[in-house]
């Protein structure tokens, strides 16, 4: 019965359009009252759920990302990517994907990637004779790469939702190879689609221009180097690196590019505050929700239930993947991570799956959900930037879904893709 109160209240409030954080909080509140326990615990969990040092990386990475989008960094990375893969079949589509790889190294947000890269690439692709839906499709699905490559604040959310004992440094490192595989498989899909529609290629600009564009992109690339170099050489920790990213982004935009006026600075700060407050309130309320799930023994009983269904971890992982894909079509990424990690992670661990590996599966899976209707933040951003209706973009997106799902299967069933690199660094 308690579970009906918990999930029932949550679902009803969600459907009538109550903000997700309050659906989670109020459902926990109602359940605590139903159980006859002191409701004060709901608000204690809310407070301690957001009072976690590692969570600080979320405002910092978001802040750094906002500053960088306002600086000139995204445009320069796109220009650089153009010199590398522009002459491949489907030229600008390939450029778009590689630009997402570069941008993904400085940003942890798929929506930021879709608006920054999409804003630059989609109009350009349209002018060169590409179909707009192709331009939007490539932009949207390749944005998932930003989630996989470090930094990724969603991996931090995962680590904390998993009890805060999963190494963030390991998670960051683990995402690199799957992120690159995703890029390669999307490039393959882009190649096939481009061949079918006979899309143009870009002429190779020559090594001189390649060199000068590379130099122009260096400040953006240096950030990647600073974060990695700084963490690996012991100057700062993985969570502190997010703060250094803010300082660096501030110095670059304020001093090097001189694109940061006082108004732009306060705007960027307020934008970061708004996004962070929204995301972290959900995390705090989900901490109450997660506490109740643990109190009511939901994960423990789910493990027993699933063990009764199958003893094969492959089958269990497939079921979890399908559940996450379905949930992902309806809900946003960060609330889903905080809600489902305490439920599914113990199951995965009971079946012998490494928590780091499971984190990568989860991020990739829910990343795909960001690109699907009916609720897909990144899909909406891409369609808004390209000015195409969602249904039109989705009609031709399937080759990219296929590539992303194929990558998900590879990442799910070959743990080494996620675990080999962190083990190397250990």
């Amino acid at each position, binding site marked *: 019965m308690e579970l009906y109160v918990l999930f029932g209240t949550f679902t009803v409030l969600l459907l009538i359009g109550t903000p997700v954080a309050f659906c989670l909080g109020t459902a926990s509140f109602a359940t605590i009252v139903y159980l006859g*326990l002191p409701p004060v*615990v709901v608000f204690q969990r809310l407070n*301690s759920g957001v009072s976690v040092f590692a969570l600080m990386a979320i405002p910092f990475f978001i802040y750094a990302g906002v500053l960088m989008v306002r600086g000139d960094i995204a445009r320069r990375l796109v220009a650089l990517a153009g010199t590398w893969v522009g002459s491949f079949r489907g030229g600008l589509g390939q450029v778009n994907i590689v630009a997402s790889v570069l941008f993904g190294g400085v940003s942890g947000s798929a929506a930021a990637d879709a608006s920054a890269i999409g804003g630059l690439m989609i109009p350009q692709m349209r002018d060169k004779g590409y179909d707009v839906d192709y331009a939007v499709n490539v932009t949207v699905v390749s944005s998932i790469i930003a989630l996989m490559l470090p930094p990724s604040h969603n991996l931090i959310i995962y680590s904390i939702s998993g009890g805060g004992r999963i190494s963030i440094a390991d998670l960051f490192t683990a995402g690199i190879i799957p992120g690159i595989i995703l890029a390669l498989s999307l490039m393959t899909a882009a190649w096939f689609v481009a061949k079918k529609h006979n899309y143009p290629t870009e002429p190779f600009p020559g090594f001189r221009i390649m060199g000068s564009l590379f130099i122009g992109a260096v400040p953006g690339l240096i950030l990647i180097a600073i974060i990695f170099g700084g963490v690996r*050489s*012991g100057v700062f*920790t993985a*969570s502190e690196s997010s703060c250094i990213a803010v300082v660096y982004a501030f110095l670059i935009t304020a001093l090097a590019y001189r694109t940061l006026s006082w108004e732009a600075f306060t705007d960027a700060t307020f934008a970061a505050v708004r996004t962070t407050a929204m995301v972290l309130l959900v995390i705090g309320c989900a901490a109450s929700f997660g506490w109740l799930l643990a*109190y009511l023994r939901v994960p423990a009983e789910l493990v027993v239930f699933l063990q009764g269904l199958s003893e094969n971890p492959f089958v269990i992982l497939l079921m979890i993947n399908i559940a996450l894909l379905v949930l992902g079509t309806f809900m946003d990424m960060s609330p889903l991570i905080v809600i489902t990690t305490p439920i599914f992670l113990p199951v995965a661990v009971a079946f012998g799956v490494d928590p780091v590996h499971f984190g990568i599966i989860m991020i990739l899976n829910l990343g795909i959900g960001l690109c699907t209707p009916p609720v897909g933040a990144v899909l909406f951003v891409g369609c808004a930037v390209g000015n195409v209706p969602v249904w039109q973009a989705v009609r031709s997106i399937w080759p990219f879904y296929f590539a992303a799902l194929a990558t998900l299967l590879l990442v799910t069933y070959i743990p080494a893709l996620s675990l080999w690199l962190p083990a190397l660094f250990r």
Partner: protein
Amino acid sequence: GAAAACEITLRSSDTHPEGYPTVAAVEHLGELVKERTDGRVCVEVYHSAQLGEEKDTIEQTQFGVIDMNRVSMGPFNNIIEETKVFSLPYIFRSTEHMHQVLDGEIGQDVLAAFEDHDLIGLAYYDAGARSFYNSQKPVKTLEDLKGMKFRVMQSDVFVDMVSALGGNATPMPYGEVYSSIQTGVIDGAENNWPSYESSGHFEVAKYYTLDQHLMVPEVLVMSKKSWEKLSAEDQEALREAARESVPFMRKMWAEREEASREQVLKAGAEIVEEVDKTAFIDAMKPVYEKHVTSDNLKQIVERIQAVK
């Protein structure tokens, strides 16, 4: 005979994983209680910090949301004054000394102090002795420690202790310690044998100096609200079971320490046993002066030192 279903289920929190001596001890206690109440009272352990970190679960126990809680003495330092003495460096001369103090009058007096804070103190469990480990060199003297960065828990006493020893105290979340030692953000940390082993820190910090600066016992507390709901006879059964779980726990703890020690040694850790402990203890004077301020604390410290 335990035939009937549980009428009362006491939920107990623990931050350690399943199979850890504290978790096993509370589970053992649960079996004893169930047996002696004819199955009426059961204990269910929520291990691995499922219900939150120690600081949070202490508050939850005070509210009566959870019934029992196995926690370190450390987080109580800023709540219950008397508990501070157990977090003083080198307060106990040895494990035997510690057991003498805890099992005797002083231990009972400190447990009694919990009652003013809506808690009932049931039992003390072992947590071994904490010592320094680092990635740089075998530390034998105070001179060796100078300027080294050690991770400590967020606690005034522990920070002051490391500073007084000449080190650089660096508070940091536990989850970041491994990679921070590995990359050189810090030089080392401090902990007991089982944690040194299970955290994997021995892989990156192979020099373990047995200076045994802290012996902070664990404590099993119960919510006063839940306690008062029990009948006098169930309360007595619980107290007795708690008492009996202590030797069970101590035995398991010793075994666990030994197993960890063997594993760490096999992995090539270098153990420094001959430490100039008197120099370390002398260096603690300012720490005692700063933190043992009230007459109450001074008295307890003197009583502990008087225990043979």
